[in-house]
């Protein structure tokens, strides 16, 4: 019980302290001016936290956040003024409408790549502003909706009538606290990890079975709902809603707060929200120089502390920790590693027998800029087979894997998995069906630890139902995951870096992490794209044992690899590609003996 409460205090204590401090503001200052600054700061907190959900957590720079805020304002104002609808209806309409609007804006915008996404959302913000300005019949355009009543809030057992500013303040404080808690909760659940994965590498996330667009849309819609609710309160507080209420100025504040705060850092964002709403008010003493000084201060802050407020927090923490532990330095250098000390390599619980997939490729073609990378390739891989795919550089091996795994759409041809046509299916859908690949260029989630990389990969591979059902469960590791992860980490010499961020690892170590992630949940078909390139020879032996063990358990594996020693030793069948065509196909001995293969590939 004590342990739980102390952990709670460690995780949420600073939030509680902040909340209490915020609650005391009206006690110390009766001035409506200071309270209204407080209200503005709290509204910015709501907006910034939701903005951070999109920009910081899923990594999509959205200029549309103020649109949802403005939408909430207009919904509240119009419902209250025209239809005299009560408070809860305003909130429900704003949230539901905001999420719907988020889908309308988000579905086309998320089809764009991330730079274009910024301009796309800027476009939607412009369009929304124009509608608010020009749809006179509804919004009254620049004439503004004025006289928005401050609604009474029925709570069932009592009614609250926050007609005075201090009451408004506590009301908005409650909402801000709820938004912050929701954001903390998302971050600490599996959903938070999935967001981070999508931000770090959407292609990898897709090949782990996530649907990156759905996750981004989720963040976008949740953020929209938060902002719309903030808008409802802002409308009540300001009592007038104009098109300029949600213009560029809001976006600028949000950008500053989110980026100075430090991306995806709640405490940074909260601190920055307070600083950058209070600062312009403090600077009123400077009269007309006010905004000049504001800009200069901002510039000085960015240039002198470019890593943001979160970074300062971390430095303070490290300093305190350093004092406690007497400054223990750590490095990531790897230990030399004796492979033969590893006794047993089991594929994910040896008792399991995996039902390998049956892959049939026919007439596959793909060209880039007129050059045929794959040219009418047909290939069948039977369940449980381990096929080595070799060939000179540029012969189309990776493109073939790309076409099979849904990364690239083939120009022609057909790919079947167990008799079902999977041509053109997304890599997310294929991963769900048990078809998993690794990348030649080595993809890992750079800001996640090695263990988290594995946990995320496991999560994405579940069925859609299970995936979404467990998003709100805590990030703690299940027993079965811990066993598998421990085994992989142990046997791939990753123990000493298991809690390090994957982005800090060397090239070869990332290869190991990537491989571990691909087998953390038993796939049915595994496509390995040069898993051994750049890997230390001692680890190669391990790798071979891992591959063999997986093969032994019944997986269907295609191995693209240049290390012929490994390929010949492991594979029962070799396929040689040249210029996108099949040059040879058969058992390793025969294939290596074929003169055309020797000439094209071995150069002997």
């Amino acid at each position, binding site marked *: 019980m004590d342990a739980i409460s102390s952990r709670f205090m460690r995780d949420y204590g600073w939030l509680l302290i902040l909340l209490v401090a915020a609650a005391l503001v009206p006690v110390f200052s009766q001035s409506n001016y200071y309270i209204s600054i407080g209200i503005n700061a709290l509204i910015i907190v709501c907006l910034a936290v939701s903005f951070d959900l999109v920009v910081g957590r899923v990594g999509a720079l959205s200029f549309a956040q103020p649109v949802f805020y403005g939408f909430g304002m207009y919904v509240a104002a119009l419902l209250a003024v025209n239809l005299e609808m009560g408070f809860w209806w305003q909130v429900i309409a704003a949230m539901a409408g905001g999420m719907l609007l988020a889908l309308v804006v988000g579905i086309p915008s998320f089809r764009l790549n991330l730079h274009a996404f910024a301009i796309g959302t800027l476009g939607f913000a412009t369009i929304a502003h124009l509608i608010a300005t020009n749809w006179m019949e509804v919004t009254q355009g620049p004439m503004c909706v004025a006289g928005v009543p401050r609604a009474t809030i029925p709570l069932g057992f009592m009614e609250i009538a926050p007609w005075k500013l201090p009451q408004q303040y506590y009301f908005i404080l409650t909402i801000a606290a709820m938004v912050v808690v929701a954001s903390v909760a998302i971050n600490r659940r599996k959903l938070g990890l999935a967001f981070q994965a999508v931000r770090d590498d959407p292609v990898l996330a897709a090949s782990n079975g996530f649907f990156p667009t759905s996750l981004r849309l989720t963040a976008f819609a949740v953020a929209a709902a938060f902002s719309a609710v903030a808008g409802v309160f802002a409308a009540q507080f300001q009592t007038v809603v104009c098109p300029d209420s949600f213009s560029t100025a809001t976006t600028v504040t949000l950008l500053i707060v989110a980026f100075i705060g430090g991306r995806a850092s709640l405490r940074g964002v909260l601190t920055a929200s307070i600083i950058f709403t209070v600062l312009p008010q403090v600077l009123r003493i400077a009269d007309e120089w006010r905004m000049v000084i504001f800009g200069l201060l901002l510039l000085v802050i960015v240039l002198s502390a470019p890593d943001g407020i979160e970074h300062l927090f971390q430095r303070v923490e490290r300093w305190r920790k350093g004092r406690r532990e007497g400054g223990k*330095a750590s*490095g*990531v*250098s*790897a*230990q*030399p*590693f*004796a*492979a*033969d000390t590893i006794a047993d390599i089991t594929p994910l619980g040896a008792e399991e027998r995996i039902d390998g997939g049956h892959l049939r490729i026919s007439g596959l073609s793909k060209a880039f*800029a007129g*050059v045929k990378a794959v040219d009418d390739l047909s290939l069948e891989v039977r369940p449980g087979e381990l096929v080595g795919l*070799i*060939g*000179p*550089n*540029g012969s189309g091996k990776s493109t073939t894997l790309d076409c099979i795994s849904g990364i690239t759409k083939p120009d022609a041809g057909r790919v079947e998995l167990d008799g079902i046509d999977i041509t053109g299916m997304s890599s997310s859908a294929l991963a769900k069906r048990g078809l998993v690949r690794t990348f*030649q260029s080595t993809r890992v989630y750079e800001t996640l630890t090695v263990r988290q990389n594995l946990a995320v990969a496991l999560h994405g591979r579940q069925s859609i139902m299970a995936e979404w059902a467990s998003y709100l469960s805590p990030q703690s590791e299940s027993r079965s995951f811990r066993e598998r992860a421990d085994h992989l980490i142990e046997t791939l*010499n990753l123990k000493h*870096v298991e809690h390090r961020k994957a982005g*800090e*690892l*060397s*090239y*070869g*170590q990332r*290869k*190991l992490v990537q491989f571990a992630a691909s087998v953390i949940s038993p796939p049915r078909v595994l496509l390995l794209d*040069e898993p051994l*390139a*750049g*890997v*230390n*020879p*001692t*680890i*190669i*032996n391990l790798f071979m044992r891992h591959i063999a063990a997986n093969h032994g358990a019944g997986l269907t594996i295609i191995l693209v690899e*240049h290390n*012929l020693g490994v390929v010949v030793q492991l594979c029962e069948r070799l396929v040689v590609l040249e210029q996108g065509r099949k040059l040879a196909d058969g058992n390793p001995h025969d294939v290596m003996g074929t003169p055309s293969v020797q000439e094209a*590939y*071995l*150069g002997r």
Partner: protein
Amino acid sequence: MAVEKEPLLELRDVHAGYGELSILKGVSFGVGGGTVTSVIGANGAGKSTLLKTIFGMLKVREGDVSFEGRSIAALGTVKRLKAGIAIVPQGRCNFPQMTIRENLEMGAYTRSDDGIEADLQHMVDQFPILREKLHLLAGDMSGGQQQMLEMAMALMVRPRVLLLDEPSLGLSPMMIDEVFTSIRSLAEVNGMAIIMVEQNAVQALKISDLGVVIELGRVSATGTGPEMLNDPDIRKAYLGLPVI
């Protein structure tokens, strides 16, 4: 395989790292002109960091790097290039939207003499695969061809020391043989000192005069190529070969 008395490049107790992370913790060895050196070690031991430090992309925090007897620890990369140290880093390191010819010209960016065109012709003689593609974009070539191109670009400065980070990475066996053969001949014919980091350690050591093992940011063993290949500890720990 004559080794000069005075090493061309010498590292003395070199420390380096990124930010608060310390990677190299005292590396010392020297290489002479006309030799090939292989640096081997586990993944993450600091081999790439070593090459970057020699080229000047990372600062030497402690210790010294000297070239032709003079300390170069304080020089930037451009000055080191002009002095004759070139690098081919790991990963794609060319200009994908320029032609092969332009890429080679960019390789000679620090030069202003009029021998560039002649050297360019010399390069395409040496790497015939580039000749027929001189007017194609680098980005449209296969990985192996780009690897060749990058080596040729580095050679365009007529380096005395050439640093190669995993030159055989992702290459087919035929290409690997070709690359290693050129490396050997570059050292012997042009008198360069070549330092390469290779995971393909067995093949690399076969053509090396010197092998250097990096462990936890320090040199744990040095020796000639054959010595390394026959050392039971190294065979076991780094080469993945059975102990004879």
